[in-house]
């Protein structure tokens, strides 16, 4: 061994246990964000290219056709791209937040088993869950802000009026992500989980949540998918703040409350599953 050895003081001296226990969730957040920074260029490029292509093809491409058919009344009284923008922002927030809370959880419990390494430190299951969640929130704030900037560039939103749309999108995404994080922590079979998530959850939610046309224009049995879909609740709130889409005060309360219930239920379930998996 060379002269790099520093005099051993021992953990009783160097580890501030009370502080480590108090700030555990923050340490996990910090580690996750540090990991995310390794992919910063691919994250940034997908966050910018994704909305660019969506808006070019749907907002402008399909939009030209829809606007021509809708005439002066527009869709929900607006140009198609304005109608579409809140839904796209809501969708990207949900998708990014969900990816960031599900893949690290599968990695942590199944692939690399890094959560077990984390749990060998003062960290608790609850702190690991919260840290994973907070880091995903930070990453999603990044994508939502970038997406909003592209929407501004396309003239799909008016900044002064529509900026709270970023908050409603984040709120809905965060609420749903809590539930998805718990589901990922509860799953033993990652293949089935990823297939179910991709094919039975993401696509139907995207297609039946009033994303591309008002939910009310679909047959009512299909509308029920929208009612349970966080994307529909998020889109409705987004359209309300973006261009003044008409919603009754009761519905606003229902949207917020439904999403909040997902958040509380999701987090409680996640804490429970994390503790269980780590001490099984």
């Amino acid at each position, binding site marked *: 061994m060379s002269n790099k050895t520093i005099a051993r003081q021992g953990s*009783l001296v160097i580890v501030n246990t009370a502080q480590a226990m108090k700030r555990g969730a923050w340490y996990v957040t910090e580690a996750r964000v540090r990991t995310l920074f390794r992919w910063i260029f691919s994250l940034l490029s997908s966050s910018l290219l994704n909305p660019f292509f969506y808006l070019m093809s749907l907002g402008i491409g399909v939009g030209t056709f829809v606007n021509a058919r809708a005439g002066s009344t527009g869709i929900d009284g607006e140009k198609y791209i304005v109608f579409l923008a809140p839904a796209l922002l809501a969708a990207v927030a949900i998708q990014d937040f969900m990816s960031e809370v599900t893949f690290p959880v599968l990695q942590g419990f199944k692939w690399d088993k890094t959560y077990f390494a984390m749990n*060998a430190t003062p960290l608790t299951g609850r702190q690991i869950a919260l840290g994973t969640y907070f880091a995903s929130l930070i990453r999603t704030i990044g994508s939502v802000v970038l997406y909003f900037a592209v929407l501004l560039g396309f003239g799909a939103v008016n900044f002064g009026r529509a900026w709270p749309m970023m908050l409603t999108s984040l709120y809905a995404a965060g609420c749903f992500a809590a539930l998805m994080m718990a589901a990922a922590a509860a799953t033993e079979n990652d293949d089935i989980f990823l297939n179910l998530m991709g094919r039975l959850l993401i696509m139907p939610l995207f297609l039946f949540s009033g994303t591309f046309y008002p939910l009310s224009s679909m047959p009512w049995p299909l509308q029920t998918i929208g009612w349970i879909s966080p994307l529909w609740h998020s889109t409705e709130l987004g359209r309300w703040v973006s261009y003044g889409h008409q919603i009754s005060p009761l519905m606003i309360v229902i949207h917020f409350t439904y999403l909040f219930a997902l958040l509380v239920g999701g987090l409680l379930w996640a804490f429970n599953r994390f503790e269980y998996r780590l001490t099984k």
Partner: protein
Amino acid sequence: MLNTPKNEKLIEAKGLTKHYGDFVALAGIDFAVHKGESFGFLGPNGAGKSTTMRIIAATLTRTSGDICILGKDPAERGPEIRAHLGVVPQQDNLDQALSVTDNLYIYGRYFGLSKKFLRAKIEELLDFAQLTEKRDVKVETLSGGMKRRLTIARALISEPEILMLDEPTTGLDPQARHILWDRLFRLKEQGVTLLLTTHYMDEAEQLCDRLMVMDNGAIMAEDSPQGLIKKYSTKEVLEVRFGSEKNAGVSDQLKEMCERIEVLPDRILMYADDAEHVLEEIRKAGLHPVTSLVRRSSLEDVFLRLTGRSLVE
């Protein structure tokens, strides 16, 4: 909670049990580990070694009994105990996508260690683990031995009071094992309390001051490696082979010539303080083994005596 004098017994367990439904993983074991000693759990797979380690690591709750680690009950004060443990699990659980340095840094932060402290500590640990040249390499590209050394280095980032190693060298080639043993020796010299499980006799003999032989969730014996050999075996062993079909046939005759005999499928082990003399007697009796080997008794012989089974099957 048990009352343990500080700086004496770091770990003390009494009547420790763990049940999984009807399965008894630990059947009420007692043991104590003292500061600065190197304590080993020796036993085959399923003996209860890893279960005991996880209870000590405060990541698995016991079914009954008492256990006290650094004066605290792990069921109630897990995070406080874990703050002073370094854990090397059986299976490396490094973050494969991150670099060697990042793995160490992130882990250090989980203990709340400052960035300044970690910068110096990481240099020291890279040197210790002979990974300085690999510092910026992603973990997924490292060899098995390097990953193992990194996992050990990671466990040392917080200068733990107790370093726990679960099967530290399983799956490593002989050279990698020897490098690892050398590193663990150095830690022992620094006064770090080592707690390890193994099913390798040589590892147990090399590294442990004291050993607990386990089987089926119970303690079969506990002593120093030499003490165990002295207590449960003879000085020497004669291994003879007569061919797999004849081994059983001659065993009655051989029994008379030594203190104890074990007939294994491929060979016969004859226990005596002077094995050369036994070999002479065999020849005098007109028996001609195909091969014969005189060796010193090992922990393998102790295990065979205690459990009737070979340790590595």
